[in-house]
């Protein structure tokens, strides 16, 4: 294992692309100037289930500026791939309201949009079913859950243990559909030429998007280039490929012109993924002293009829607490709804809301402090696999957080603290997120002038990846930051995994480290940089393939204080404090921002975010930012994030765990637990709307 002498790593280096961003010069997907460009406006389905019988494009084609209208009858044929969501305009079937039925291509956007309103679509409407219920007759067990985990896991005999347990909690928790809503809506500019397809796209992974799109068009991945130097946020929504990029490529193919397609904020609610709603039943059995004897966590979720996305809702429960008898399950129902996908900490975020709310209920049932309850159930080894943890500092996070937050003098009685018309309460919850890492390639090049360039098709969706990779490279090369350039965001660069699963820095950083080590060796061997420069390439497939003998997870503790207006039920978070154990923190400035950003999204999840499905029409009603509320500046009080020292040699050359998602895990439970402490009301279905807090 290489030890990197820290110089740049661990410092608060400024974001390397910050200057471009504060001056407005950074170019996002829709903003690349290309000659002869035309605009696409999609026509969405207005029914949730059925078949398109006829598409009348005659009127639209007479509109000035209109170049073409594509629908399933005339669209270029695509090859079949695994994800049927990407078979855009290939079939008359309608699987959900908002699905693309046709697209108008015109010289200007307003011409395309106006003509799109005039495309006549006739449907054979079928009765739709968009209602998720725990007793749905079509519930089934998926083969695997995201990313590739078993759907059900059982150890011991949880049913018998529950029946025998002196103290039990048995409760159902619900989380709503939520939409990622990165600030930049999805956008694509697609161009075909002699060399193939070029996509300027807002994506979390240039390589993976390239590899997904190429087979649809029956071409080699080398004939597709994805360019994405700057991405205006993703939070998972730009991870898996979605229909818009395919639609843009189809339109460009058909017209022979470069096509711009910007998904509107409203359309994002149908075609770019979302967090599935969940119905979760948690059963805990314990001794009166709080020691768990059984944990059962069952989740019910939805997916669309055309693609299975099975979220790993109960998987964090597999590793959190010691209990000899345990079961975690996932059941899915395929409804006439848009296809769910990744949203920041898919699985962990909703799953830990349920588990950590239930733990709070158990603490009350046992008359124990909720922190003490968690400490008593701290496992020696991973309860699921029996493997030792590479590092596990949940208890340290809880204790450090309790000290910083001022937990010691807390009166556990609910509903007794008043300040004016506010009821005040505090709550705690644990966080966790697994350590993932994927194989990548990278090159490192030395120029005679002492400048080094590292190339890897990584993505910076706002995380600070470009900056941290520069820090990593500089340290391995033992040069100042200013002499290293890191090129990312382009599939023409060495292939890389996508920004997802909080694995970016671990995956890309390993490849960057290995490339820079190899370059250093090469320069040593040559006795300096040759006049033509020198480039080395690495591939971490082999290193990444070695199975770990450890269970590897990040942990954290979240504390919340809330005030609830006892007359109106208005709940506001007064402060949030998180302490995390994430291995080595490579850049405290970007890391703190990731934690605080995640916690803020967790606050938003707790109090605001909810995509409301219209049962009658089958679409999400509140599909814009005036109605889908995310936390605004005025809603976010003091949010503090800290981390404990954690040295873990079993991760990667940097010693780091992922930090992009853990900040949102547990926040909603901490807030809900604080609301209970404030009011005595246990809200088990998010968000904690004001009308739920009136007795």
């Amino acid at each position: 294992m290489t030890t990197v002498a820290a110089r740049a790593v661990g410092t608060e280096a400024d974001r390397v692309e910050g200057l471009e961003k504060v001056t407005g010069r950074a170019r996002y997907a829709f903003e690349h100037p290309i000659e002869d460009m035309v605009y696409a406006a999609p026509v969405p389905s207005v029914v949730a289930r059925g078949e398109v019988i006829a598409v009348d494009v005659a009127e639209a084609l007479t509109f000035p500026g209109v170049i073409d209208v594509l629908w399933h009858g005339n669209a270029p044929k695509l090859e079949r791939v695994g994800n049927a969501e990407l078979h855009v305009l290939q079939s008359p079937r309608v699987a959900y309201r908002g699905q693309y039925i046709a697209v108008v291509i015109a010289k200007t956007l307003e011409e395309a949009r106006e003509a799109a309103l005039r495309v006549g679509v006739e449907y054979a409407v079928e009765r739709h079913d968009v209602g998720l219920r725990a007793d749905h007759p079509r519930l089934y067990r998926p083969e695997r859950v995201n990313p590739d985990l078993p759907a059900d896991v059982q150890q011991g005999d949880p049913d018998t243990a529950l029946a025998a347990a002196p103290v039990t909690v048995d409760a159902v928790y619900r989380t709503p559909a939520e939409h990622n809503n990165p600030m930049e809506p999805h956008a694509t500019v697609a161009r075909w030429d002699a060399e193939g397809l070029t996509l300027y796209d807002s994506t979390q992974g240039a390589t993976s998007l390239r590899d997904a799109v190429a087979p649809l068009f029956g071409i080699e991945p080398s004939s597709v280039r994805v360019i994405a130097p700057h991405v205006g946020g993703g939070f998972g929504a730009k991870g898996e490929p979605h229909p818009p990029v395919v639609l843009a490529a189809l339109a460009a193919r058909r017209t022979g012109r470069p096509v711009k397609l910007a998904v509107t904020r409203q359309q994002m609610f149908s075609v770019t993924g979302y967090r599935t709603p969940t119905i979760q039943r948690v059963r805990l059995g314990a001794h009166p002293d709080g020691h768990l004897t059984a944990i059962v966590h069952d989740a019910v979720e939805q997916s669309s009829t055309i693609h299975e996305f099975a979220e790993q809702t109960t998987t964090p429960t597999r590793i959190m607490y010691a209990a000899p008898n345990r079961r975690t399950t996932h059941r899915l129902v395929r409804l006439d709804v848009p296809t769910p996908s990744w949203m920041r900490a898919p699985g962990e975020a909703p799953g830990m809301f349920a588990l950590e709310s239930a733990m709070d209920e158990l603490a009350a049932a046992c008359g124990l402090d909720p922190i003490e309850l968690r400490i008593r159930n701290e496992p020696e080894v991973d309860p699921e696999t029996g493997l030792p943890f590479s590092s596990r500092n949940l208890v340290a996070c809880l204790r450090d957080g309790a000290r910083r937050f001022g937990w010691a003098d807390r009166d556990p009685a609910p509903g007794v603290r008043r300040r004016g018309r506010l009821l005040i309460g505090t709550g705690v919850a644990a966080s966790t997120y697994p350590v993932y890492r994927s194989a990548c390639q990278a090159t490192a090049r030395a120029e005679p002038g002492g400048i080094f360039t590292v190339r890897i098709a990584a993505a910076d969706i706002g995380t600070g990846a470009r900056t941290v990779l520069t820090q990593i490279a500089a340290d391995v090369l033992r040069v100042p930051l200013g002499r290293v350039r890191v090129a990312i965001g382009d599939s023409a660069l060495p292939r890389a995994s996508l920004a997802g699963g909080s694995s970016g820095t671990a995956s890309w950083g390993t490849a960057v480290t290995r490339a820079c080590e190899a370059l250093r060796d090469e320069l040593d061997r040559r006795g300096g940089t040759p006049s033509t420069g020198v480039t080395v390439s690495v591939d971490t497939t082999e290193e990444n393939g070695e199975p770990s003998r450890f269970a590897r997870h990040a942990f954290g503790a979240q504390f919340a204080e809330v005030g609830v207006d006892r007359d109106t039920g208005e709940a506001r978070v007064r402060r949030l404090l998180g302490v995390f154990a994430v291995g080595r923190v490579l850049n405290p400035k970007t890391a703190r921002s990731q934690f605080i950003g995640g916690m803020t999204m967790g606050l938003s999840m707790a109090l605001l975010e909810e995509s409301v499905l219209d049962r009658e029409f089958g679409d999400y009603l509140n599909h814009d930012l005036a109605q889908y509320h995310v936390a605004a500046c005025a809603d976010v009080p003091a949010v503090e994030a800290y981390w404990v020292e954690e040295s873990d040699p079993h991760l990667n050359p940097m010693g780091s765990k992922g930090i992009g998602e853990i900040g949102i895990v547990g926040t909603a439970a901490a807030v809900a637990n604080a609301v209970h402490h404030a009011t005595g009301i246990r809200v088990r279905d998010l968000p904690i709307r004001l009308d739920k807090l009136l007795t």
Partner: protein
Amino acid sequence: MEFLRPASWAEALELKAEYPDAVPIQGGTDVMVEINFDLRRPARLLDLNPVAELSRWSTTGGVLRVGAGMTYTSLIRELSADLPGLAQASRTVGSPQIRNRGSVGGNLGAASPAGDSHPPLLAADAEIEVESRARGSRLIPATAFYQGVKRSALAPDELIRAFHVAPATGPQYFSKIGTRNAMVIAVCSFAIALHPRRRAVGTGIGSAAPTPRRAGAAEEYIAAELDWDSRAALDPRVVARFGELVAQAASPIDDVRGTADYRRHALGVLARRTLTWAWHEHMRERTTT
């Protein structure tokens, strides 16, 4: 589409007479959203920005005449003392960027039941001045202006020129409930105005009926119950009854932002709160004068 740019009010009326389908645009905070979202593509936009008089106010015979295009920001800056209820409501509209463009006239034109300026206009007995080339100008009491969800008494050839309202002679308060601390469409809202000289109370309810409306029975009840001459504190039973009557005046629905039951409950809370604030201020003023 045609973009009409009248240079004066007279010209604006001419254009509106000639093209009754022309959609007036002032701050654009409603009209542009509808166009951006493809909800409508009007045949003509009538830009009122160049009509400078619309963004000014004046006083005639002790009554304020406030131009329909005066932005919320200007109103807060210039009229907070005279129109405290409306100024409070204006502060809760959207964000600084929206308040820099949005206007009471635009709120009236859109006639959304959730518009923040409606309750204080109702509570303060405002009148809306509208005008057409054919029939000249007329004053419509705010109570008669709102006719349905996003429907008003404005005729197709008319434009909103101003609203008329007497400067406050007593305390005025506005309060609204939302899920966020800013950028909030009201779940429900309420405005109260005390008129000590005529011993009357005005109210306005927002977001809890198809149109903004007054709570007439609540007004009559509380005007009779208040002991205007003394400095007596409010009887909690009277405050509670006022809250009940206000809640009864609403006919709310369930929607994404809240349930009907919640709205009724919350309106009662807002009514009790704003009445208490207003009465305390009234007592303070009586004490100091």
